[in-house]
């Protein structure tokens, strides 16, 4: 029998406190390469903090996080974190595009300036990625000239241009008008179908059910329950999860 492939992302008993407030109280989680994992849960349950710990934006107090070959909690300086940020890209709720740069510049700058990639190669990659999200003709526009949905698609392209192994999505549709939610989810769906490892914090339960290989439910800084979506959404065991699903579905 073949040796099982270890998960690409593995969190073990991760704890994090901001001041005296303990946000994560022992989170353990595994994500296999090519899988899509959705994290759901009430506001303030620590979902977004989990994502920020995975790419080292937030340092943890105890436990361990491994992403591929990176042992995240040992990366103490910004310099040591650069290789991790190459492998893990993140898309934010508020898009966070750089408003003083054009769409194309937003996509090109980090691969060229941080990863020192060849500008011509990055440019052709950027152009094909922009075409994939139907924004090929908006490369010279500034973020302020785009709709929210367009900006979020650019943000996804910017994250993909780092050629990551794992993509983190932090409530990326929460700030969008309903008709734009669809176009952004469509892009994520395509990515998932291509085999990109995705970890999503989301309030789109239908989307989570459709796309996820596994869904984690967090509440009060712990993972209350995790299971494949069919089981988690249709046969929830924990009363907290049941109450939560009653409210949101």
């Amino acid at each position, binding site marked *: 029998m073949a040796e099982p492939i270890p998960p690409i992302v593995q969190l073990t008993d991760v704890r994090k406190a901001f001041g005296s407030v303990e946000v994560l109280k022992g989170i353990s989680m595994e994500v296999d390469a090519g899988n899509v994992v959705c994290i759901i849960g009430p506001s303030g349950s620590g979902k977004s903090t989990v994502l920020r710990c995975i790419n080292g934006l937030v340092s943890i107090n105890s436990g361990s996080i491994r992403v591929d070959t990176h042992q995240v909690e040992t990366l103490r300086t*910004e310099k040591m974190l650069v290789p991790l940020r190459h492998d893990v890209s*993140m898309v934010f709720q508020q898009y966070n595009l*750089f*408003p003083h740069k054009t769409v194309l510049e937003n996509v090109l700058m980090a691969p060229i300036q941080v990863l020192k990639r060849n500008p011509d190669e990055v440019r052709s990659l950027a152009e094909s990625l922009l075409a994939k999200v139907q924004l090929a003709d908006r490369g010279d526009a500034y973020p302020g000239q785009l709709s929210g949905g367009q900006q979020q698609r650019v943000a996804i392209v910017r994250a993909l241009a780092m050629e990551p192994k794992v993509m983190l999505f932090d409530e990326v549709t929460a700030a969008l008008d309903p008709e734009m939610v669809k176009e952004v989810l469509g892009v994520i769906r395509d990515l998932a179908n291509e085999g990109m490892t995705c970890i999503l914090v989301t309030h789109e339960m239908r989307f989570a059910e459709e796309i996820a290989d596994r869904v984690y439910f967090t509440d009060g800084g712990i993972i209350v329950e995790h299971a494949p979506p069919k089981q988690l959404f249709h046969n929830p065991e924990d009363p907290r999860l049941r109450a939560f699903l009653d409210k949101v579905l």
Partner: protein
Amino acid sequence: MSRELTHALIGFFGVIAVLGGVFLAAYGGDSLDAVIVLTNRASLLLIGSNSFDSVGGGFLANIGISLASMVVATVLGVSLGGATTAPNPMVRNTAILVVNLMRNSPWLVVLYAMLYLIPFRLSIFGTEYWVSPAAKAVVGLSVPVTAYMSEVFRAGIQSVPDGQWESARALGYRRGAILRRIILPQALPQMIPNIMTTYAMLFIGTSLVVVTGTKDVLSVAKTVIASDGDDYATAVYLFVLLLFFIYCYPIATASRAIEQKIRKAGLHG
């Protein structure tokens, strides 16, 4: 012509007319004599020399000192302002302490202190330098203005949303590069009005450098009054006031205009 520009011009010529009115009220029938004195002394007051061929100080010295102080204060203030937002608490708190110390030092006290703190002769690597009063004035004025500039800079950095830092860090940028490539280009337009206001304030402050013995416009004015008689003191000081006003008013007006423009752009953007 836009309404703002009309208002600015009315303000400009209005103040000049008021100064002229005070002048006429003070001198009445002797106004012509006073004008002749001012005309004869104009080059001395403006450039510190009796003819316009050479330069020895006067109002031009105030401009020079203000520009030099501004350059020093900007360079130091940018570094200090950056330090007040540093993640390291030691660096940050030290910088905040220094800023508060410098910001709360009365300008005149600092200038007097420089007069006695900085020696007349400075020996650097065996070479003797004579420290001119103007150099001391620049150092003295730079102290409080550095603090103001660091505050302008800090406020500019903090005007950029945290999400910009976060997404830049997620893309692998380090702090220095984030400041240089992402935060400052967005913060600078916001900072321009405050920088201009600080400069206008600094320029008005150059009237204090008279205590260092610099041949600035005020010390020249005192010399002129001493030689031409106290009768013309009012005329000379009104003239000096006019010079300061003509120089500072456009800066203040422009900074207000830019500020409004930025506010409007912010509302629509």
